[in-house]
């Protein structure tokens, strides 16, 4: 079932996602303004989603459908990815609202300068 050649089918996707993940992390670490950080976060989530979809295509073992019968192949990863997209949208909405709120109080959105709370 898991011979090296077959394993290689999923490898390129994983490597792409690893690189994307690493770029996203860099963005999170280094972006000065909050919007930039939030955008980098989207890259992180997309890296995860690429993984999930790749695995759902190649590695899924399927789930039993109790009510309708049969086995749904690849559904698990896709559902997780779908939910992660939804969550990302929700998080972006809340996050940007907070960013705007920050802007109103601080007159800037430099994450690095938000250090009222420390030590």
């Amino acid at each position, binding site marked *: 079932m*898991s011979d090296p050649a077959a*394993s*290689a*089918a999923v*490898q*390129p*996707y994983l*490597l*792409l996602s*690893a690189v994307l*993940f*690493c*770029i*996203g*992390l*860099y*963005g999170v*670490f*280094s*972006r000065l*303004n909050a*919007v*930039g950080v939030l*955008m*980098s976060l*989207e*890259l992180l989530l*997309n890296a995860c989603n*690429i993984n999930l*979809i*790749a695995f759902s*295509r*190649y*590695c899924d073992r399927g*789930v039993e*459908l*109790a009510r*309708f019968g*049969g*086995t*749904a*192949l*690849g*559904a698990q990863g*896709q*559902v997780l*990815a779908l*939910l992660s997209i*939804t969550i990302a*949208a929700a998080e*972006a*909405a*809340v996050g*940007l*609202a*907070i960013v705007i*709120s920050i*802007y*109103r109080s601080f007159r800037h959105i430099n994450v*690095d300068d938000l250090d009222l709370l420390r030590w």
Partner: protein
Amino acid sequence: MSAAATGVGPAFWLLAVGIIGGALGVVLLRNMVQSALCLGLVLLLVGGIYLNLHADLLAGFQVLLYVGAVVTLVLIAIMLIHNLAARYVVQTNQRWGLGAVAAVASGALLVWAINDTRWPVTLRPVDYSEQLRQFCLALLDKYILPFEVAAVVLLVALLGAIVFAQQTERSE
């Protein structure tokens, strides 16, 4: 390894190059509007990857939800915040060097671990319509709970966004 064995065609490589380039644009460009557009590009291309993996429905969601909603939100935020749009200023903090090292190190760890692994891959033909049908049935069957919960999460997020928006009038 041949393209046939891996299932990766030239389309993938084009998409991959586009994604990585776009992602670098997101994190490196000094103009936030350009950065946001790069994000849109990346998200679109990731949708392409989904198509490549025969997850058509997801690709649709990706374009609708991400490119449609999220990127628009981001752009609105950029516009709302003065002096953020259309300016070329330094957009990195002082820790970017360390950040780069940590990011590259974790990327290296991931790449190494992934290459070290024999994934339990089953190569099987894809029946598009059957897969789509099953996916939808699964959503109604097993995944009905997460689906409902996701609705509540969006409601909460909506309420939260309103809370933060309201405060502004009070504090001015």
